[in-house]
């Protein structure tokens, strides 16, 4: 179908751009660091999109999954286990388990209570991380070294890490597409639109939502694994609720309608923060109002901006 091919053009373009970035004059150290961070947060935002855009549930505690993934790296690092083939699955598993346990309670509600409960569980994880004195407590924990991959120190290599992040982001993006189009995803999307209708044809939305929440948790855990390796430092602030709010904003900024929006939103917000940060140390004073304005006026997100502009021109 041409429509779906057109929908695939932008993501392909973006991923190609990211792949070529090191050779387009963006290969400097700080730029590569920024791009890696963008891709990792893109992966985290993508996982949150699965919950918000896919299942229609607004979670305000997603940073906890990211942080738990990162703390899994810390825990294994302290035990001198640094093999990525062990560490990454552990990070995914820990975050997914947390998501399943808290999701089992949170998903008994919907709407605003769900928002508040996910926020509360996120806060619980935050306080727990802050009280872990043997992992540095409030001050955080510096890793001895980045994870090794199959025994080799591939992740130390800046290019290698760049492409690892890109490959995982692109893979997760593809996975989200397949998941939403599958039988499972169809039930999930249907339950978002009309839960009663879904029950009337024989599905209870709960297990589908819970599993989606768990999968999203696992993906965020993977992002946490990458983030810990990118910064070689993990602190409770990874789990702060403001981080959850930022992730949510990335999803909305890009556009809730497609997983691509989450990736785009993550990169856009990161660049915006970086740009504002160059202007003033009080950059949040500018970001806050921009955020409010974006919510009030940018209804379709960045992905929907061309259509919105065309619509405005036609009406006004």
């Amino acid at each position, binding site marked *: 179908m041409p429509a779906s091919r057109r929908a695939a053009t932008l993501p392909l373009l973006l991923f190609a751009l990211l792949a070529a970035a090191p050779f387009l004059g963006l290969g400097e150290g700080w730029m590569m660091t920024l791009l890696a961070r963008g891709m990792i947060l893109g992966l985290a935002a993508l996982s949150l999109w699965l919950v918000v855009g896919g299942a229609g549930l607004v979670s305000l505690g997603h940073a906890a999954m990211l942080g738990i993934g990162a703390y899994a790296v810390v825990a294994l690092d302290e035990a001198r286990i640094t093999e990525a083939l062990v560490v990454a699955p552990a990070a995914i598993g820990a975050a997914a388990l947390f998501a399943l346990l808290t999701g089992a309670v949170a998903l008994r509600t919907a709407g605003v209570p769900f928002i508040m409960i996910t926020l509360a569980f996120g806060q619980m994880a935050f306080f727990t991380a802050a009280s872990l004195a043997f992992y540095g407590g409030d001050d955080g924990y510096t890793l001895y070294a980045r994870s090794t991959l199959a025994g080799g120190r591939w992740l130390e290599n800046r290019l290698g890490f760049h492409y690892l992040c890109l490959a995982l982001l692109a893979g997760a993006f593809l996975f989200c597409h397949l998941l939403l*189009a599958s039988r499972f*995803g169809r039930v999930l999307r249907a339950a978002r639109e*009309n839960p009663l209708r879904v029950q009337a044809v024989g599905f209870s939305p709960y297990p589908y939502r819970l599993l989606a929440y768990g999968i999203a948790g696992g993906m965020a855990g993977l992002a946490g694994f990458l983030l810990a390796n990118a910064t070689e430092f993990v602190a409770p602030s990874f789990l702060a609720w403001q981080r959850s709010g930022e992730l949510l904003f990335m999803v909305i900024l890009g556009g809730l309608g497609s997983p691509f929006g989450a990736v785009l939103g993550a990169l856009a917000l990161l660049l915006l923060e970086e740009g504002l940060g160059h202007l003033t140390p009080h950059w949040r004073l500018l970001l806050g109002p921009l955020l409010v304005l974006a919510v009030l006026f940018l209804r379709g997100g960045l992905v929907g901006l061309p259509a919105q502009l065309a619509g405005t021109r036609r009406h006004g």
Partner: protein
Amino acid sequence: MVEPVLRLDGLRKRFGGLTVTDAVSLAVAPGEIHAVIGPNGAGKTTLIHQVSGTLRPDAGRVLFAGQDVTGLPLARRARLGLARSFQITSVLPGFSALENVALAVQGRSGSSFRFLRPAAAEAMLNEAAMAALAQTGLAGRAAVPAAALSHGERRQLELAIALAMQPRLLLLDEPLAGTGPEEAERLVALLQGLRGRYAILLVEHDMAAVFALADRVSVLVQGRLLASGAPAAIRADPAVRVAYLGEDEAA
């Protein structure tokens, strides 16, 4: 006597001090169209909720396909073959007509915990869904999003969804509500076409439609069953005329 598909046994439901369903017992035989009529506030909607599983009765039992389903929720009853339509049309507005129906087919055919294969490409789901759409006269509208269908078409779509479940019983809650005369006529013809193939419990306000369709009519007044019998007998029943039909004719 044939084993009924659905049997309600002394259902009772109270809201605060108000008894909305009071000792209601009735049965729907296989292939039978059983209509429940009653004036506004007679408790028809509450009864439907208890049959479909969205409300739990305070007393009594719901037996469906030989099984006590009183404690089962909507989704479990649906999987046993109880398909309901809603008084206020309830479809998936963002899904195409075909995908609306395909979801119902998916509900009865295999696990839906399948994660990577595109559901829209499953020929088996699509064929069964197309068949149900054709049966309700919507074959030409398969690709249209439900939100873009006319009200009458959405009524037909709900029926297609119900049929795609291959149900043992169709529970139709005012299927003609809000339709124009032409649309109503088309829907009645459609329901006529289902006669004998499905057991149907029909709650409907349109008396012409009820007496044209029903094999059996039960009259609900203030939560109680006033009478139950063949349409002709009900029409002739003086108590029913006083309690309900007379009032209707006077209006």
